[in-house]
């Protein structure tokens, strides 16, 4: 009986986990090598980041604050960026895209 209860509890836990996967954000620290934006008022842009190992990741940026920084070039190729993103419909969509902290 106890074994049956355990199996049932495990099955419920598995089902819940599968139904709402709590996927952690991916992280990357890298230099911007390219920014593509269709205009100053664009609602979306892509930025390519190259990490310290030389691997490139293309990030889709949708938040207004970061787009604004692309538009007036507060973020440009060569800047180091700390980025978190989620994979959505095959795209790496940024949830955090900023120059690393510290007084500057």
């Amino acid at each position: 009986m106890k074994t049956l209860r355990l199996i049932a509890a495990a099955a419920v836990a598995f089902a819940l986990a599968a139904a709402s996967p709590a996927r952690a954000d991916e992280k990357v620290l890298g230099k911007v090598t390219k920014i593509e934006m269709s205009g100053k008022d664009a609602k979306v842009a892509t930025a390519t980041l190259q990490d310290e190992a030389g691997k490139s990741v293309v990030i889709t940026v949708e938040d207004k604050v970061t787009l604004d920084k692309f538009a007036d070039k507060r973020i440009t190729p060569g800047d180091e960026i700390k980025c978190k993103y989620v994979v959505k419909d095959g795209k790496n969509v940024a949830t955090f895209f900023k120059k690393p902290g510290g007084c500057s």
Partner: protein
Amino acid sequence: MRTLVLAALAAAPLAAAPAAPPKPALPPPPAEHQGRDYIKENGYQGPKTCEVCHEGTARKFLDTVHWKHASKVTNVEGVDPKREWGMKNRSYTFCNANDIVNNLKEIPANEKGKSKIVGCNSCHPGNHLSDVGSTGPEAEAAVDCLICHASSYDYSKRKAFKTADGQVAMGQDRSVEAALTVGKPTVKACMTCHEAAGGGPLVKRGFAFDAEHDVHAAKGMVCVDCHGAKDHKVPTGFDPNNWANDGLRLSCAGCHGEKPHGDPDYDRHTAVLACQTCHITTTGGAVAKDFTSWTKLETGFYEPSTIKRAAADNRPAYAWFSGEVVNTPHLIGPKGKRGDGKSKIFPFKVYEGHAYFDRTTGKLLLMDFAQPTATGDTKAGVASAAKTLGLKNVDPVPGWQTIYFANSHLVTRTKALTCDRCHSATGVLDFQALGYSKAEIEKRGLRGAGLWFDKLLKKEQGKDE
């Protein structure tokens, strides 16, 4: 009407004592800068071009807090009122550095071999070759007018670099494209520096000036609608931690008057409460930092260990404030008390800073960030700053300092404190700590619903009708 509404709050506390006079209505500025054609024909050469019409402006600008990062300060205890004080030379634990000890420079390489050019004066609107407080023709020519006045400034040009002779200079966007977009400073122009101060976005003051967080921003107002400059001297309110000022003060009453509510019960409160106390119920930003032990980042650099909250994600503390400031090694805060005839109760953002103090003198020691940013060695930073300041035999010991910041943005009308939020058993104001005796609180029912129930009920019922 708009002009009248404008001057109000954004800034610093409603100066309790010296209330600013109402602003006269000004004519609206021209929609388009009248010098466009001149700039198109002649190009843009910095202040030299601006001075064709705005003669003498660059020279006057050199005498402002934005250029000097300092001014004479008459409301802070323990500082010489004949000298100038500000981020140029102050010591306090929010930054633990200033323009002098943490001058813009290339720091040593970190363990990953990375270096960078950083310093407190990276926001100074010059080119660093003419630095904070510099004077004369070279300084006048170095003013970056467009960093504040161009709505289309290319920030990639405003980066520090080394000149051929090895000096550190700050670049500027002096393009015709930028010059053709001049006008009054936008919110972004102000916030590019003022939001990033003290270690990152919204760390220091912790307010976001946007429609979500501030009623003035929601109405389309910009910073300079309240902080409207005269000869580039910018009015500010009184703030225990913001000493430098251009000698111009502003207050909510400047636009809203002393009795703005149309309700005698609320209006009566303005004799003892600053407007901010009810109309700014939140605060944000860093609540504590440790400058004695820095945190290593993924970049290989270090930064002061910081605990921070999002904008509007914290609650203010309340205290009487006359505009005078307590300034000791372990407390920078408001002076004032009930019944002194000049104080009101204000809300404050309270911050705790951990830093080194000199064992012998008890004074706060400053830090050059170059060494700790590269290696995490905070005592090397203290030694470097002491050397710059000519201090000998400093003996650093860790200690804490509490700082009260004015809480003057994040203004709300609809979520302002109502009677029940203060006058109840769990109200936000600690009447005893604010100088009210137990007997008086009891007698006047300051913590009871009897004070307000009928009034609020009538209001609530009025809403339903």
